């Protein structure tokens, strides 16, 4: 892979490969057919995950513990040839092992007896439609029906196989395994008509179930935005077992920062014609966003500046003069916008006259890179699979009845432009949508559609805010308050299958790249080599035994004496050949990481032989590989080795922490990822938020009320107030804390992931989750120093109350110095009870407890 997968992507690929492995095995052994789906929200990188899975499918992958299938053939099937082209391009972009010759677009001239192993074939509905050259003449019934006419439709000339023949031959070849990937991710976009939908269903059914002598495809892997949609496609599948669907957790996608955190909806408060008002407002937002990105690029010394784009969504039959007027408004409001910054992606691919302006057409897929386009006129979701991360503002002139068009188009704009979250800056992590044709009562439907998703799109995991107000850092909070805030430790979500040696190598690489520690990669490997040397010394005898195991293959010969009816076993030993040694070495490389194993073999060989003598040195290399393979077979080696790698990584992270903090955000992000590559929760510092959007009013059953506001929050509006919706016990906690002597500030810890939200890892079931405590309080202690208190009121009715409490207790044990008080509050029988997590006996009781409620009722808790 050329791209580094995000943690959740790795998890999903691992699960997908586990399914593929199972399906392959059951097909080869029992001829059973299987299907499963991979579902993820828009923007989660489904093609990248597919690329990683294909690499493993064709070439094997030790990390995922997946062996290559020598006969793997993939058919990628979607509605639309242009969508297939995009997928092909993206696969090529993401992978360094799938070559462009391995990806074949099936054209009408395609004529092969069988599909070839190790290739991905792209097919779409039309290619298998009744009149396509690829399938003509396959259907005998069709031929019969035509036989009466003078010229029956027969197979085209020079065509020995129809596509269906090819598919049958491929499935029937026992050395090949055919996988069908159904790309359903973009279905429903652009509102296809009923006929095309039913044509597609028939063809998909035919591929899955088989017909007229063509067997169904053994393994079906659906990629889609919602599980329901794949289920719908699998409706009517015969004799096919379902494997567990792989569902990507939307929260993790959001944690990764690939998707914008917030969608801001603006609409007029009153009824009337507000088109120009909101276009002006949108232009201001575009301008502000342009400046903010330019400023950010300057501050971070980013080579590329994000140039934001505004999408102007027009109704199905737009009045061109109206569009012209809107464009005029934009130019009036922002005279510095260069002339000719407008383009359109309407159905008519020619230059259009809008008012007195000539606006050229641009192909949708070029919009992202054609930076001269700053305003884009569009009708619906533009095109399937289109997305434009730099689109930051949208004005829609569509009315309430068109809400799906609006949500679909908005769904294309949620990817973050730099593929990472901008620390602490809510503005750059959000996308604006202005709806002049809406009012307060109709906007609810859009919000609902965005939050809950519909058939064609899953909901984006971020927040959706209507007419929000930006909260800025409280001017009353001085530098010392924020300094304290930034020192508070937040935890990251631990990762499955993290490998300490890889993490150390990655860290060393970044440190060397940033010139913080020159030659860090060499230093890291030298340190690990020393550990391995030590192990070789201390475990000499065991290694010698394992070495013999690597170098010999033992087996048994059965001698059956037919007359005497006896059997005897003779054991034999054969010398291992290169393949066996390589296999053993690969296993060891899994333990020590491939790179460390390679450099260690090098190092051993250099010690043993003179590099000038090629033959002797090669002997030494082979010898060293055997040695490493033997070392890898020792079970007790891995924990020692991992601990050493972990220790060094920790040392470096703390020694160079200050230097890392001085780097640009982009570089810091790399280190953050390295930090997170651990199976233990890792501490990261909080980031001072530059601002945060909050709604000031809430709507419940058509009655709108203003949210209660409170003073002394770390972020506040111009009046120093912060609006917040809280339940009864949260209000009580806040009021109690505010009355305590020395109280200075409070902070409502955001419940959404981000660098300004304090997270604590907890283990529930086999999965790690992140709990975000509700409140952080800042107070002046008796001795005059500024201290922080962590108070987390939470409900006991949820099943994960106890795991969360355990997570908090472990966090408290590890960070007693960071807070003055660490308390968990819950309501029991109408009274608020509190557990002091700083007390060791309370933490012990939490570790032993069966349920959370009894703890709060018990003697260890006290009244709040």
């Amino acid at each position, binding site marked *: *892979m*050329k*791209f*580094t997968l995000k943690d959740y992507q790795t998890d999903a690929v691992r699960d997908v490969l586990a399914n593929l492995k199972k399906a392959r095995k059951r097909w080869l052994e029992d001829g059973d057919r299987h299907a499963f789906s991979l579902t993820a929200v828009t923007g989660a990188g489904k093609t990248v995950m597919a690329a990683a899975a294909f690499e493993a499918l064709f*070439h094997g992958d030790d*990390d995922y513990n997946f062996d290559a299938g*020598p006969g793997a053939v993939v058919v990628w099937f979607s509605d639309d040839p242009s969508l297939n082209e995009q997928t092909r391009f993206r696969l090529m972009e993401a992978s*360094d*092992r799938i*070559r462009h010759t391995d990806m074949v677009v099936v054209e009408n001239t395609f004529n092969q007896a069988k599909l070839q192993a190790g290739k991905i074939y792209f097919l779409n509905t039309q290619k298998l439609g009744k009149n396509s050259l690829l399938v003509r003449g396959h259907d005998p019934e069709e031929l019969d029906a035509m036989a009466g006419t003078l010229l029956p439709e027969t197979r085209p000339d020079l065509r020995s196989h129809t596509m269906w023949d090819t598919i049958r031959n491929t499935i029937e070849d026992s050395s090949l395994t055919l996988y069908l990937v159904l790309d359903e991710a973009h279905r429903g976009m652009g509102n296809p008509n009923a006929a095309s939908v039913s044509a597609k269903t028939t063809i998909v059914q035919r591929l899955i179930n088989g017909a007229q002598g063509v067997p169904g495809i053994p393994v079906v892997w659906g990629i889609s935005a919602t599980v329901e949609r794949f289920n719908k496609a699998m409706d009517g599948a015969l004799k096919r077992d379902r494997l567990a669907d792989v569902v990507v957790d939307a929260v993790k996608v959001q944690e990764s920062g690939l998707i914008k955190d917030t969608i801001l909806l603006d609409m007029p408060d009153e009824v009337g014609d507000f088109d120009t008002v909101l276009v002006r407002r949108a232009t201001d937002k575009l301008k502000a966003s342009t400046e903010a990105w330019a400023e950010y690029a300057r501050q971070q010394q980013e080579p590329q500046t994000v140039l934001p784009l505004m999408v102007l969504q027009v109704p199905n039959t737009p009045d061109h003069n109206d569009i012209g007027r809107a464009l005029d408004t934009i130019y009036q409001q922002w005279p510095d916008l260069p002339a000719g910054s407008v383009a359109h992606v309407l159905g008519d691919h020619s230059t259009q006259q809008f008012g007195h302006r000539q606006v050229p057409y641009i192909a949708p897929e070029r919009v992202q890179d054609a930076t001269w386009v700053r305003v884009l006129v569009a009708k619906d979701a533009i095109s399937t699979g289109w997305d434009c991360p730099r689109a930051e503002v949208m004005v829609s002139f569509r009315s309430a009845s068109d809400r799906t068009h609006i949500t679909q188009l908005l769904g294309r704009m949620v990817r973050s432009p730099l593929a990472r979250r901008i620390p602490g800056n809510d503005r750059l992590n959000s996308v604006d949508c202005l709806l002049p044709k809406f009012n307060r009562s109709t906007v609810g439907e859009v919000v609902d559609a965005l939050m809950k998703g519909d058939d064609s799109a899953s909901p984006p995991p971020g927040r959706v805010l209507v007419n929000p107000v930006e909260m800025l850092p409280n001017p009353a909070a001085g530098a010392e308050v924020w300094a304290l805030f930034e020192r508070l430790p937040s935890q990251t979500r631990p990762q499955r299958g993290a490998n300490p040696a*890889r993490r150390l*190598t*990655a860290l*060393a*690489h*970044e440190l*060397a*790249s*940033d*010139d913080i520690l*020159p*030659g*860090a*990669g*060499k230093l890291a490997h030298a340190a690990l080599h020393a550990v391995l040397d030590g192990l070789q010394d201390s475990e000499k005898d065991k290694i010698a035994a394992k070495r013999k195991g690597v170098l010999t293959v033992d087996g048994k010969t059965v001698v059956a004496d037919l007359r005497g009816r006896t059997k005897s076993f003779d054991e034999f030993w054969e010398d291992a050949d*290169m*393949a066996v040694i*390589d296999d053993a070495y690969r296993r060891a*490389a899994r333990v020590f*990481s*491939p*790179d460390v*194993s*390679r450099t260690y*073999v*090098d190092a051993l*060989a250099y010690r043993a032989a003179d590099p000038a003598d*090629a033959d002797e*040195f*090669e002997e030494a*290399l*082979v010898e060293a*590989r055997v040695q490493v393979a033997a070392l890898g077979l020792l079970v007790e080696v891995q924990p020692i080795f991992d601990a050493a790698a972990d220790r060094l990584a920790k040392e470096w992270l703390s020694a160079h922490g200050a230097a890392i903090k001085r780097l640009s955000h982009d570089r810091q992000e*790399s280190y953050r990822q390295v930090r997170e590559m651990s199976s233990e929760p890792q501490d990261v510092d909080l980031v001072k938020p530059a601002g945060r959007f909050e709604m000031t009013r809430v709507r419940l059953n058509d009655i709108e009320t203003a949210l209660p506001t409170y003073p002394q929050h770390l972020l506040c509006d111009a009046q120093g107030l912060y609006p917040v919706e809280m339940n009864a016990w949260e209000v009580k906690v806040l009021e109690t804390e505010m009355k305590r002597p020395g109280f200075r500030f409070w902070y409502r810890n955001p419940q959404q992931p981000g660098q300004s939200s304090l997270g604590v890892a907890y283990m529930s079931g086999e999965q790690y989750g992140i709990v975000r405590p509700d409140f952080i309080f800042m107070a002046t202690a008796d001795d005059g120093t500024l201290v922080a208190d962590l108070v987390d009121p939470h409900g006991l009715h949820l099943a994960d109350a106890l795991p969360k409490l355990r997570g908090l207790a472990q966090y408290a044990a590890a960070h007693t110095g960071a807070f003055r008080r660490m308390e968990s509050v819950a309501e029991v029988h109408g009274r608020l009870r509190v557990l002091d997590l700083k007390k060791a006996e309370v933490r012990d009781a939490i570790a032993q407890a069966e349920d959370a409620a009894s703890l709060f009722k018990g003697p260890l808790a006290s009244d709040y």
Partner: protein
Amino acid sequence: MSDGFEENAEFFTLTYETPVSINHNRAFERIAPLLWLRAGSRGPRIDKLPAQGWAVVDAYGLLVEPDAATPFVKAVQKTPGLRIAYIVTDDDRRFQALARRLPDGVEPVRLYESYLTNFSFTNGD
């Protein structure tokens, strides 16, 4: 004709190499022409393992020591028309971290991982 041709002819000898010596970067001199051919057979060739850990010529670059990533990437950026960056590492993440920093249009190729799978014909299967 007396001025010679613009093009040159060069003859290479095809040899067999063991995977071990390739994998451990011992046969670089014999691999070198192939890397040059794959990058478009244009401009000078890197024939010896560079002492400083990396080298950049007209059509391609070679990074043997990933610790020297930063000067390598800078040199690549300064060479217009460069097509391929060969990177010697067995670590996925190091390769990806480097791939991310290369300018658009430069294809990262991993040595000898992708190389061996591309050119070997007896894998022992």
